[in-house]
C-alpha cells in the first residue's frame, strides 16, 4: 500500500489534468458540433459538402493516429507557417495536440447529434413563433435552441462519456495525465496491476459524477414534458 500513498498525490494531479483536457476538448467539440450542424442544415451546398467531408473523415480515422499526426506533424506545419510570418516559436505540446485532436474528432460526433436534435424540434413550433411576430433570431434563441438542447442531451451525454475515456490515449504521446503517471508508477514499483486499477477507479468516479450531472440536466431540460409510460 505504501507505494500507492507515495504516488497518489502526483496521480491525482494527473487526474486533474485529465479532467481539464476533457473539459477543454468538450468545449471545442461543442462549438465545432454546433457549427457543423449549422453547415449540414444550411442551404449553401459547399457548406454541406464541407461538413459531410469533415464528419466522414473524422469518424473514419482513429484518435491515436490523428493525435500522432497532429503532435509530430503539426509542429512541422506550425513552424513553416510561423517562419513565413516571422512569428516566434509556437509550441504544439502533448496537451495542445491532445485537446485539438479530441475536440476535432468529437466535433464530428457532436455535429451528428446536434443535426438530429435540430431536426427533432417540431416545425409547427417554429411556424407558431413566426406567426406571433417573432424575428428569426428570436425564434432561434427562444424556441429552436432551448428545445434542441433537450433532444441533444442524451447524445451529448453519451459522447461526453466516450470523450472522457479517449483522454487516456494522450498518455501515448507523453502527456503526464493520470494514465501516464500511473503507468510510470507501475513500471517503477513493478506493480502495474495496482496502479492501473487506481486509474480505473478514478475514471469510474468521473463517469459516476458525470452520470449524476447528466441526470440532473435531463430532469431540468425535460421540465413540463410528460414522460411516456409503457
Amino acid at each position, binding site marked *: 500500500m505504501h507505494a500507492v500513498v*507515495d*504516488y497518489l*498525490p*502526483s496521480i491525482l*494531479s*494527473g487526474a486533474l489534468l485529465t479532467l481539464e483536457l476533457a473539459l477543454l476538448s468538450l468545449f471545442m467539440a461543442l462549438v465545432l458540433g454546433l457549427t457543423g450542424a449549422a453547415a449540414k442544415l444550411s442551404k449553401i451546398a459547399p457548406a454541406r459538402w464541407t461538413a459531410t467531408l469533415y464528419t466522414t473523415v473524422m469518424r473514419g480515422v482513429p484518435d491515436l493516429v490523428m493525435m500522432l499526426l497532429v*503532435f*509530430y506533424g503539426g*509542429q*512541422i506545419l506550425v*513552424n513553416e507557417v510561423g517562419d513565413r510570418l*516571422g*512569428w*516566434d*516559436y509556437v*509550441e*504544439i*505540446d502533448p496537451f495542445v495536440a491532445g485537446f485539438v485532436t479530441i475536440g476535432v474528432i468529437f466535433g464530428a460526433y457532436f455535429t451528428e447529434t446536434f443535426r438530429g436534435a435540430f431536426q427533432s424540434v417540431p416545425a409547427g413550433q417554429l411556424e407558431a413563433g413566426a406567426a406571433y411576430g417573432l424575428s428569426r433570431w428570436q425564434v432561434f434563441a427562444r424556441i429552436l435552441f432551448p428545445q434542441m438542447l433537450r433532444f441533444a442531451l442524451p447524445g451529448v451525454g453519451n459522447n461526453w462519456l466516450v470523450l472522457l475515456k479517449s483522454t487516456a490515449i494522450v498518455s*501515448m*504521446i*507523453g502527456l*503526464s495525465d493520470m494514465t501516464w*503517471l500511473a503507468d*510510470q*508508477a507501475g*513500471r*517503477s514499483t*513493478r506493480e*502495474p496491476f495496482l496502479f492501473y486499477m487506481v486509474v480505473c477507479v478514478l475514471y469510474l468516479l468521473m463517469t459516476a459524477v458525470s452520470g449524476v450531472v447528466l441526470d440532473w440536466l435531463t430532469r431540468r431540460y425535460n421540465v413540463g414534458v410528460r414522460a411516456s409510460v409503457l
Partner: protein
Amino acid sequence: MSKLAFFAAALLAVSVNVQAKDWSTIRMATEGAYPPFNEVGSDGALRGLDVDIGNALCAELKAKCVWVKQEWDGMIPALISRKFDTIIASMSVTEERKKKVDFTDKYYSSPLALIAKSGSPLRPALESLKGKRVGVQRGTVSDNYATKFWDGKGVTVVRYAKQDEAYLDLGSGRMDAAFVDFWEAHGGFLSKPDGKSYSVLGDKVFGKTAEERAVIGDGIGIAVRKKDQDLKAALNKALAAIRANGTYEKITKRYFVDDIYGQ
C-alpha cells in the same frame, strides 16, 4: 501607418529571435522512463543522472534549465522542430543520427549487453539467440543492432516504447532476453530487487567490426540542432569544466560506483 506597424512587428520578431539565441534559457529534453539516467519520481518531477548533468551544465553556463519530457519515439524530430534545444537523454552518438542533428562531446559511454536469467546459456550472438525472443526499446542503438544483425534471421525482436516495459516482460517471462545499454541495465534493473536473478550474459557488445561499431555509435552525447553551433561549443566547454572541477564525478558517484565515462 500600416507600414509602420509592419516594421515594428518585424523589428519585434527579429529582437525576439536574437533574445532566443543568447541561451540564457536552455530547454532540455529527456524521456523520463530510463532509470537511473532519467525517470519521473513519485512527485511527478524529472530526475536522474541525465537531469543532474543537464542542471550542472546550466549552472556552469549561468543559464536557466527548462526541462521538457518527450517520448523517445519522437525525440530527434522534436528537437529539429524546436520543441526544445537539447536532448540529454542518454542518446548514443551514431553516424545515422548525425545526419539529422549534431552532438556534443560524450558525457559517458556504454557498451550494449544481453540481459537474461543468470546461468542461462544465451549469448549476444545470432547462433545463440535463434528461436528466442529479445526485447529492445524502439529506436535505440540496441534496436538498430538487433534489427540489423538478428531480426528476420530466426530471432524475434520485440520493440517496446519504453525500456522499463522490456524489463517488465523479461521479469514476467514473456521475453527470453533484453538487449540494452550496459550501464542502464546495471543501474536500472540488475541492481534492483527484481533484477537480482538476472545478469549480463556473454561479453558486453562493443562492436567487433566497423559495421557493428557504426551501429553502436561513439559514446553518449547531448544532441543539438545543426545550426546551433554556439550552443554546442558552450555545452562542450561547460562539460569540460564540470569534468575538471569534480562536479561530474560527484554526480556519477550518486548512481554508479564505477567510472562510466570510459577512456
